[in-house]
């Protein structure tokens, strides 16, 4: 058995983009989504990334047997869209699940910020996601990864309470200090929870820099990359390479050679023999935590800051966030399935990301993912939709009151 490990984990998510929703629509039209854009984008990415990359992984697993392993987390929003627009993607994930070499992780169903907004909503969404993965892919997630790898001591404690023993997060420099991300750590608030930390430098070499021809290391080959991994983990246990799955074929185009690179990587790693491939569950079985990690304030894998400022950094985002989570209580009283579903989609972290005003340091990345010209447009559109949703929620609540009053009256009559 190799003495060190590589853990590959890919995030699959597609936001439910909102349509242009004007003030004049409020109270009149409660369809909020840009179905055309959502379908078009999903199908394009399915063709360029999900289907070819799933086929490649299946092929690699066939060739190397259980020596090659990867992990996925697929958001509920993405699963919804696959079912509607590209069911063959579900089938191909199911085929990967059936090999036993692929682990599927749990997350919030709507790729939301619920862990920061509402404990009950957070628990609700995690349970919903777990159920969806079980029914669609036939496996039960045991490891948790939060939206955008958001993590803090408090979130860790709640995740442990939900029964998860392992959680993924970012090896953020301001948290790690001199410590290496290439070990298993434990949660400061709940020591039973193991933490796997992303090695952002090596992950971003693939996810962000692979096709960049002005990068002095370009072009990246499997051999060169393996040498860096070995260098990084000289004294260490495990290198966690976590990235968006859309890296393969979408962010890094097929013409960049990204598929060839991934095809060559297992061969290079396995023939070298220093590393094996593990899933997150195997990783925490194989390695003991070396220390506990104090994370009082939330961290994430986004932007230079590695905090939650990409979603909650400005007053627009905070306002929208506060307004949407203020509805949680009323909604739990009403309990209408349609309202719950819209409420979930409105919580998708992407809507808040579009309102980000950090144009400079990470502007390019933000721009790439953003259907709006300005954060202000994103905010206005979102608040218009939310206003309509609030009207429906209030009406449903009022209708419930009327019904309860009528039932109460009826009971009173019976007693007499």
């Amino acid at each position: 058995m190799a003495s060190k490990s590589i853990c590959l984990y890919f995030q699959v998510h597609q936001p439910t983009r909102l349509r242009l929703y004007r003030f004049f629509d409020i109270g009149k039209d409660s369809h909020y989504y840009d179905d055309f854009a959502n379908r078009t984008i999903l199908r394009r990415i399915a063709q360029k990334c999900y289907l070819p990359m799933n086929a490649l992984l299946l092929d690699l697993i066939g060739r190397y047997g259980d020596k090659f392993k990867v992990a996925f987390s697929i958001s509920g929003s993405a699963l919804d869209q696959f079912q509607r627009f590209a069911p063959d993607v579900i089938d191909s994930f199911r085929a990967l699940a059936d090999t036993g070499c692929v682990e599927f992780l749990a997350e919030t169903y709507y790729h939301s910020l619920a862990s920061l907004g509402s404990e009950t909503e957070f628990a609700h969404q995690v349970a919903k996601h777990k159920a969806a993965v079980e029914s669609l892919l036939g496996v039960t997630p045991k490891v948790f990864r939060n939206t955008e790898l958001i993590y803090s001591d408090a979130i860790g404690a709640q995740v442990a309470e939900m029964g998860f023993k392992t959680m993924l997060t970012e090896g953020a420099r301001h948290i790690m200090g001199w410590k290496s991300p290439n070990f298993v750590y434990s949660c400061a608030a709940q020591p039973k929870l193991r933490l796997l930390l992303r090695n952002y430098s090596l992950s971003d070499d693939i996810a962000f820099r692979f096709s960049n021809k002005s990068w002095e290391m370009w072009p990246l080959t499997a051999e060169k990359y393996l040498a860096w991994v070995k260098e990084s983990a000289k004294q260490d246990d495990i290198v966690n390479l976590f990235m968006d799955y859309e890296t393969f074929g979408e962010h890094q185009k097929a013409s960049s050679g990204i598929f060839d690179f991934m095809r060559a990587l297992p061969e290079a790693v396995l023939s070298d023999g220093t590393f094996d491939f593990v899933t997150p569950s195997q990783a925490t079985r194989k390695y003991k935590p070396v220390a506990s990690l104090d994370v009082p304030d939330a961290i994430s894998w986004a932007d230079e800051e590695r905090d939650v400022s990409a979603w909650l950094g400005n007053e627009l985002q905070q306002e929208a966030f506060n307004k949407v989570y203020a509805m949680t209580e009323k909604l739990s009283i009403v309990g209408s399935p349609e309202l719950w579903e819209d409420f979930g989609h409105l919580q998708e972290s992407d809507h808040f990301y579009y309102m980000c005003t950090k144009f400079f340091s990470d502007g390019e990345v933000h721009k790439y993912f953003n259907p709006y010209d300005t954060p202000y447009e994103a905010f206005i559109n979102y608040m218009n939709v939310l206003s309509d949703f609030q009207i429906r929620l209030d009406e449903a609540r009022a209708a419930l009151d009327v019904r309860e009053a009528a039932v109460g009256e009826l009971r009173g009559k019976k007693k007499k």
Partner: protein
Amino acid sequence: MFGWEFPPHIAGGLGTACEGIVKGLAANDVQTLFVMPSASGDEDQSAATIINASDVAVDTVSQTVEEYLDKVKFIHIGTNMIPYADPEEFSRLVEEDRVRQVKDFSISYGQKYKFSGKYGANLMEEVARYAMVGGTIALQHKDEFDVIHAHDWLTYYAGIAAKELTGKPLVIHVHATSFDRGSVDHIDTRVFEIEKRGMLMADRVITVSDLTRSIVIGKYGIDPEKVVTVHNAVDFSGRENLQVERGVKEKTVTFLGRITYQKGPEYFIEAAAKVLKRTRNVRFVMAGSGDMMNRCIRHVARLGISDRFHFTGFLRGVDVQKMFALSDVYIMPSISEPFGISPLEAMRTGVPSIISKQSGAAEVLQYAFKVDFWDVDAMADDIYALLHYPALARFSASMGYDEVNALKWNGAAAKMKKVYESVVK
């Protein structure tokens, strides 16, 4: 008459006012030759003959191009700020630009020039060319008119040129001044100079309100004797009120206009926050766009009232009517407004209006609520009262409707005719 635009293709309110004026003048038996930089051919010519300056070649008059330029005292230099250029580099660039402009000018000499007639980056250049062509047109039609009437600073040079070449009296019409466009400390000095020159050269200056009249006298130093106020009117003919089904059941308070400093949008936001502390049964809408829009959105988010305060972005055509039809209260909190036609439109739709005392419209509207633009408490009081006391809202809506219907361009044009008669010998 020199204008800059005329319906149906308009960017601002000036074209609409000009149409009302020429129609009013026609009703008062005054014939108008209306010159504009770029006519499309689909303008309504029933009240005035439209002359398209883009169709007119500059004649070989007594001046050479340089003399003409000297006379109009205009070379357009450095509208574009060039950051990070050292002084030598900057002066070289400016010189290149000047040479290019003189060359461009020479080409148009003896030829037609295609005006954009818009408010673009080369506006100053167009203003100067318009003067050349305007002078030519005035000479060509020398025997057909008695008075030159020029609307706003864009046309003042054309008016001056026409006066100098024909000796006919010049009336300039001030719809807005530089002080209404920027804050007091940030006026465009080039525009100010053109405005002042026009006012000094004019035989009479017509202002759209007493407020504007006092600016013309106080800030431009113009002899009060020759400054006359003729309030704007509004033409509602052919306008039917839209019936729009409401999506929200709360009352709606609307601000509609450019979201810029002088329109006072932030006072509206502050007043809205005050009203929302008292009642939740109301929505506020800021319709329009402008350089303060993003700042206003942040302001609203900071106050935590975004669920009751909406932005629509720029509205055009029927959406404007729709917005009025959806409103229960209209508000125009302008810091400086020469006149302000929008409350008239609101009142015509039956929407009670609150306007700032710093607007020209406040001088003619009896049944609008008037507050100082900075007095957000008074503004909030009036909004609350109009929302909660139906008798008050009904009263101000019906009286306001009658009031604005009585404001006709025919009356305004009759006053303009008197101004003409005072200068024609």
